[in-house]
């Protein structure tokens, strides 16, 4: 009996071992498959080099109709959605640009970790999406010369060459342009307000802060939704207010976008500006009068959206495209009724200029960087730049944004019409987070008038956009300490608005910020600014 028992244990162990051996074998199989693939990719690369260097003699201006030799490109990119794009869409891109793309997706929440590991292990891809320029590690890597400096190359590519100087400057580290900038609209923010509420109360769309105050009070007190109850607030704010909407309001009052240059030539943060304090007073007044929702310090973005759709409030300071999102959600809810949103992109203080603070880090979402360890020579770099340029064209943009014509969307004149939202979400959406130039969006018409209007306004914002001066500047203290002491002014803001602190306390907190390293940042940025601008 004992013997039999032991035999059983032995058999079980043997079984497990055999199973694991089998698995190792499987994996080995797939491994060798992979090495073969990469070997073949090497050979293709060499042929590309040869032909590319040949075409170079033809002269640079011919690059638009340069031969696009087949090339394997691996791309480490950030995944902002739930699932990676379908193979069909990637095949379509491969066919369009004559490449063989392999994506290595990194979930958005773990970009930092994954990128650190990749940098440490030297296991990168041909194209690496570096989208966190405030991250000290990414920043240092971009300023270290391990990536190709593309500044002298991109002027040869028609679409890449269009990138504005402000954008190029904003992604330079140590004076190096270590990748192709991810181009976004500069300033998308504005104010969206319930037109139907205004109509009901006989009010005009506000354009100055003074008018806004009146409208806001009316929204709170005059029952704009006409349900006979005093249950509305006006301005729907959320937990990130300080970083997003409130920053815009401070901008109306003249505060810089994050960091600005004072008249004396000092580089100072926005929360030391007079306009910042004035904006805070306005918010406090709003909060006390019930204009702002009482739970704004803990409200998440999604809840804010729902509150807007449900008509709990009627004003949001947000991306202008959000009006449509609120409306769509209201339709889903069956609550749209008379709902109509007016978009405002020229809010200002009476007698002062219109200022739209960039909400997209000066119109760039990072860079697509080509590491020298993977992209071995100039020819390969040029071929990849050609690919990125191709994807910034209208056709390339459509592939990455809308998918395959006839499958995911159709064209009507200059309008793009999506065919199946759910299918698009699962098969295409992920790619739209890896687009090269989002401005191409505005070259198409949209069949939704609301989107059409917000697109127009977002483009219009560029005329009075306010840029952050800090990105091209260097400050070691900023890199190490800023995120640690940012909470001093930030917390003070929420506490002041909600009545826990006085203005003197706020100023004391800001003084603390200066003492704990802020002053050093100011000094270092100022020095760096002088160096850069003579």
């Amino acid at each position: 009996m004992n013997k039999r028992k032991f035999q059983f244990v032995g058999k079980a162990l043997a079984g497990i071992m055999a199973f694991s051996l089998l698995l190792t074998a499987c994996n080995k199989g797939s491994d060798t498959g992979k090495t073969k693939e990469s070997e073949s990719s090497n050979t293709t690369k060499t042929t590309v080099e040869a032909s590319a260097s040949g075409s170079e003699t033809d002269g640079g201006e011919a690059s638009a109709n340069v031969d696009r030799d087949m090339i394997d490109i691996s791309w480490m990119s950030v995944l902002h959605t739930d699932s990676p794009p379908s193979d069909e869409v990637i095949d379509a891109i491969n066919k369009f640009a004559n490449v063989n793309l392999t994506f290595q997706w990194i979930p958005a929440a773990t970009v930092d970790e994954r990128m650190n590991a990749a940098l440490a292990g030297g296991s990168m891809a041909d194209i690496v999406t570096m989208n966190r320029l405030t991250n000290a590690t990414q920043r240092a890597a971009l300023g270290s010369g391990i990536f190709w400096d593309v500044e002298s190359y991109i002027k040869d590519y028609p679409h890449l060459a269009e990138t504005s100087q402000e954008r190029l400057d904003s992604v330079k580290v140590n004076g190096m342009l270590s990748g192709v900038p991810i181009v976004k609209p500069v300033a998308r923010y504005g104010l969206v307000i319930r037109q139907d509420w205004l109509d009901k109360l006989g009010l005009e769309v506000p354009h100055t802060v003074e008018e806004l105050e009146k409208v806001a009070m009316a929204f709170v007190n005059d029952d704009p939704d006409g349900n006979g109850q005093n249950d509305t607030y006006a301005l729907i704010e959320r937990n990130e207010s300080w970083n997003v909407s409130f920053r815009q309001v401070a901008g109306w009052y003249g505060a810089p976008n994050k960091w600005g240059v004072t008249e004396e030539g000092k580089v100072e943060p926005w929360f030391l500006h007079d306009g910042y304090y004035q904006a805070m007073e306005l918010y406090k007044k709003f909060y006390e009068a019930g204009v702002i929702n009482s739970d704004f310090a803990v409200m998440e973005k999604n809840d804010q959206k729902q509150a807007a759709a449900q008509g709990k409030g009627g004003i949001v300071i947000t991306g202008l495209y959000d009006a449509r999102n609120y409306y769509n959600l209201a339709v889903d809810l069956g609550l749209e009724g008379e709902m109509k949103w007016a978009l405002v992109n020229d809010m200002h203080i009476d007698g002062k200029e219109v200022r739209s603070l960039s909400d997209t880090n000066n119109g760039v979402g990072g860079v697509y960087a080509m590491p020298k360890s993977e992209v071995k020579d100039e020819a390969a770099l040029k071929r990849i730049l050609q690919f990125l340029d191709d994807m910034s064209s209208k056709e390339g943009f459509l592939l990455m944004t809308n998918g395959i014509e006839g499958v995911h969307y159709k064209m009507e004149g200059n309008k793009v019409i999506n065919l199946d939202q759910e299918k698009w979400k699962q098969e295409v959406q992920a790619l739209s987070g890896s687009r090269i130039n989002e401005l191409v969006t505005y070259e198409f018409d949209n069949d939704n008038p609301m989107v059409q209007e917000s697109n127009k306004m977002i483009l219009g914002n560029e005329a009075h956009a306010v840029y952050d001066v800090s990105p091209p500047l260097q400050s070691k203290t900023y890199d190490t300490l800023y995120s640690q002491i940012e909470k001093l002014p930030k917390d003070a803001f929420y506490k002041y608005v909600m009545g826990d602190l006085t203005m003197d306390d706020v100023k004391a907190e800001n003084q603390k910020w200066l003492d704990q390293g802020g002053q050093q940042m100011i000094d270092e940025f100022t020095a760096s600014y002088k160096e850069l601008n003579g």
Partner: protein
Amino acid sequence: MENVDATKVRRKKKEKPQAELTYVQKIKLTPMGYVFQFINGLFLTLFALACLIPFLNVIGTSFATTKEVLLRDFIIIPHSFSLSAYRYVFSTPTVTRAIGVSVFVTVVGTALSLLVTSLMAYGLSRTYLYGRRVLNFLVLFTMLFSGGMIPSFLIVSNLKLTNTLWALIIPSTVSAYNMIIMRNFFQGISPSLEEAAKIDGANHLQIFGRVMLPLSKASFATIGLFYAVTYWNTYRSAILYLTDTKKWPIQVLLRQIVLMSSGSDFDTGSVEVVPPSQSVRMAVIVVATLPILLVYPFIQRYFIHGAMLGSVKG
């Protein structure tokens, strides 16, 4: 002799699991005992309800229509009923494939972990073993100090494990915590059994396999469960070590969906995404959690088997 008895007893029990009552369950109740039972039952019921409600909320929401989800703050039983969230989740092979990966990693990983851990735990539980204290301390030390993510990544890639599913298993074969708990269980078994087996001429491996294993079902079940849950929840190593998204386990997708829906736009590089509806989010939670939830009721029976066999020091 003894082992023969043990096997026989065990056989019998397998046939009639209902008969397994602990002594506590068999004691006759006094009037005070009834009051005690009532209060205890009430307390447990209330606590169980508190644990169940949010879960029902998740399940209820996954079956509700988008409209209802938005209109009602808290759904337990949906007024509307819709399978569209599940249809959406399973409309691509992604989720099914990811669950397959998770099941594989969980089953193989748990088997391997249990094997290595139990052998080690048994060895270290023998109080007479020379060097035992040092080895135990070495293990404990790893619970407090870790070299961090980057060196671990370098080791895993040097071992050529990256982009294989083994990268999700081998680097987490033994959990110091589980090893220590298991060692404690072994330590709790009376040394007399081991001595008896030694007299019968059994070696350490035989003692482990024939004497200790049958007596440690509860501990194997517990530690097995802990490992299974850990492997099922594998997330970080998947992100670090797997470049091929087709090898991603379900937790990666789950996290993406849950985080996407609460995403803020100021630190995601300002990428706008259309988040999946709340129902889809909840449906994915259900799909990703249900398989591992089913494990526990299954292993609970071993908690009782062990009890009947306890020839254990008091």
